[in-house]
């Protein structure tokens, strides 16, 4: 292995990764092309479908983030949707500010929901979000900081296992309650919606959608490779060592807390980016994204796909979401049974997920 050039190792060192990257590249090329075809053409791909795929990509990125923290570091976070949503809100606030005078009340500064709750001026935390670079920065900083603060407290006092899972869940639950409050100044239950422009381009225009799609794909690729690099680096081995025998790793001289914190924060940031790309494509961000069940669903994507293998996470995200949108259309009553069964079946019979089916599974 060390013989190979690190870059080669990074991209082609593993069959799954190679396949995933190949598929991603192909999709990233084919989809816009098909979309460019005239409506009449049989092969034409509607903006709707493309946006759908784009959405799945953001989910996939979120799944990768969760897999990194759970599959490799053994920390089961039941609050990752919170970071996703925070990233989304940061982006949403930018898009809100871009509406400018085109809001229904034509107020140059205040978003509509503030006007009809007759707020007089913009809350302090809304300042700066009219600039894209600032918003983009916040997409990374806000989830990152939260993860840093939370993780620092948690890991330092060695809160582990289910305790950690439960308080991460409490965290996202608390955030949900907070964001539901209209007094938060973030649109309450309605959240942020009715966006018009992103970077001057009309948000619903097909060209913009193509751009968003490509960016999502790029982000997914970047995030994936970053995680992949981390996992095959020495740090990655340390992290997995921590997962398998935490105290041993300590006695060898590793500052376990810092490793955990580092990975946790990075994973949170990835989730935030995913959220930021998700919002302009679906056109709304609201507190229900914080629901504990969302976070748990992400975990099940990873479990279904196969934890501890990044491409498994991607596969899981796409698979489960496709199944979901199929079932909710065909027989809604059936969906929860399917989802529930998935949880049980995967944990009992498929501990290594669907990708685990293929490879010869060493214990």
């Amino acid at each position, binding site marked *: 292995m060390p013989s190979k050039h690190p870059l080669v190792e990074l991209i082609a060192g593993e069959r799954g990764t190679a396949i995933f990257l190949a598929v991603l590249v192909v999709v990233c090329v084919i989809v816009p092309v098909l979309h460019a075809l005239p409506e009449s053409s049989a092969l034409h791909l509607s903006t709707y479908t493309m946006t759908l795929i784009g959405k799945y990509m953001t989910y996939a990125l979120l799944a990768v983030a969760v897999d990194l923290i759970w599959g490799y570091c053994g920390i089961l976070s039941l609050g990752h949707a919170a970071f996703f949503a925070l990233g989304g809100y940061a982006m949403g606030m930018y898009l809100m500010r871009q509406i400018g005078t085109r809001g229904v009340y034509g107020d140059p500064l205040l978003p509509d929901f503030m006007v009809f709750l007759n707020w007089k001026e913009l809350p302090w935390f809304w300042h700066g979000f009219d600039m894209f670079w600032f918003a983009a920065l916040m997409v990374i900083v806000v989830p990152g900081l939260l993860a840093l603060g939370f993780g620092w407290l948690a890991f330092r006092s060695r809160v582990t296992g289910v305790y950690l899972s439960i308080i991460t869940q409490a*965290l996202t639950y608390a955030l949900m309650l907070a964001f539901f409050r209209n007094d938060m100044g973030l649109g309450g239950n309605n959240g942020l919606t009715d966006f018009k422009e992103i970077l001057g381009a009309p948000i619903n225009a097909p060209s913009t959608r193509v751009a968003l799609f490509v960016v999502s794909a790029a982000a997914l690729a970047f995030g994936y490779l970053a995680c992949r690099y981390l996992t095959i680096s020495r740090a990655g081995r340390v992290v997995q060592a921590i997962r398998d025998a935490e105290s041993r790793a300590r006695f060898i001289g590793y500052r376990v807390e810092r490793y955990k914190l580092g990975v946790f924060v990075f994973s949170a940031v990835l989730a935030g980016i995913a959220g930021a790309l998700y919002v302009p494509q679906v056109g709304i961000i609201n507190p229900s994204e914080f629901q504990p069940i969302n976070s748990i669903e992400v975990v099940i994507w990873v479990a279904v796909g196969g934890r501890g293998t990044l491409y498994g996470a991607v596969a899981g995200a796409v698979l489960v979401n496709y199944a979901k949108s199929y079932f909710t259309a065909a027989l809604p009553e059936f969906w929860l*049974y399917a989802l529930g069964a998935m949880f049980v079946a995967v*944990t009992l019979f498929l501990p290594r997920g669907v990708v685990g089916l293929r490879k010869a599974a060493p214990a």
Partner: protein
Amino acid sequence: MVRHVALWMLIVALACQAAVAADNDVAFSDALAALTTTNFKAKEQAASALAALRHPDTRATLQALLDGQLYYRRDDKQVLIVKEEAPADDLVRISTNNQLRKTLKTLIAGFDLADSSAQVRLAAVNEMLRALDAQGAAALRAQQEKETDSRVRNSIRTGLAIVDLDSEDANTRLAAVEVLTVSLNPDAYNGLNALLAKREPDARVQAAAIDAVKRIESSRSFYGAIETLFFGLSLGSVLVLAAIGLAITFGVMGVINMAHGELIMLGAYTTYVMQLLMPNHIGASVLVSIPVAFVVAGCVGILIERGVVRFLYGRPLETLLATFGVSLVLQQIVRDVFTANNRPVETPAWMSGSLQFNEALSITYNRLYVVVFMLIVFSALLLVLKRTTLGLKVRAVAQNRAMARAMGVRTQWLDAMTFGLGSGIAGVAGVALSQLTNVGPNLGQSYIIDSFMVVVFGGVGNLWGTLIGGMSLGVVNQLLEPYAGAVLAKIFVLVALILFIQRRPRGLFPQKGRAAEG
């Protein structure tokens, strides 16, 4: 039809009596006819007119109107009292609205003042005090003279004192103020404030009134504090009830059962089903539900343990996911069987209403019972764990699995039993919750996070911790609520909890020995 008590006939009969009575009857029948209007104001006047006539049948008529048993025939506007459920089509019910019902009650109370039973008289007086007008006051003064029962006399006294506050004569006012000094009746308080507002000329009255207001306020705030405390305790008991089952499955066995909330939900639905089975004994049905719910939830719990959990011992995170899946399935099953709508669970008479200590402090029965119920469940559980062999074994296994097995404890069977016990308790909690909140498919979800918080806060594997943890959370929440509002209070509590757990990962009362750590 024949079985209807037709007032009209009555009235005709009465008409053959003395002439004096006769024109009274005529007036009465006119007033009756006036009731058949659709205008509620007009009806009120008609009712008052009826009452003024003091006709022997007035009370019955007013009562019937109040109970919605007064009808009139479409064709001839003949007014009848109809006691049966679904009367014939040609009958139109004389509808009432809130104001009319209120007036009726006051009018009827006017009659009841003369009643032989002191209980009825007291009720009547209090009814009249709700809206006391000049003639009502007069009636009460008259009653006060001949009233024998002390309680009745007292409440008349208070009522009249409130009226007397507006009297011309300073001495009367002073007397009134003195009477009211000890009263917690809100009207008394308002009256006194009003008195002070329109700057009382007489210095003595002024002083007395100020003093009275002070005293009332102090005692009010005192009872207010008690009230808040009780609110906290009752909320706490709900939390404890919801969490105590977890204290067993999670605390003792170290199993994360995300379906715990759904087991509570099953308990609540059991109550609903029991009420369907015995619709005429709502009170009893609730009591019966307790053991039934225990068995139902317990069995489901055992199924979960045998079917899923037992394959995952030592893998808490997987258990968490699997049981979460189970919870989804349980919810959907309930949706399919009972539909997604909430189910109406009736509250038995003995559980509704409130226990009135005085006019400033009353405690609602259902909350009171929940507190008591929680204590019973808790001590019962404690007994089981401390006194029975099952409990002994459970604790043994919790302390040291391998050793216990070596000592010949059938851990397999024991795990199932323990899990069943925890689940059963959850079911019992469900019965209690069905009396407080919605019985619907989402019932469980709304409690699961709180429950875990309580257990972790209290200290895993420690029942007392759960009790104290839940109670203190409840009280803190209620103390915060007036200032922060319901939502913020909850958020504060959650954040505080998160921080606390990070300070003391083992909770309030850390468990000794092998702890349920993932």
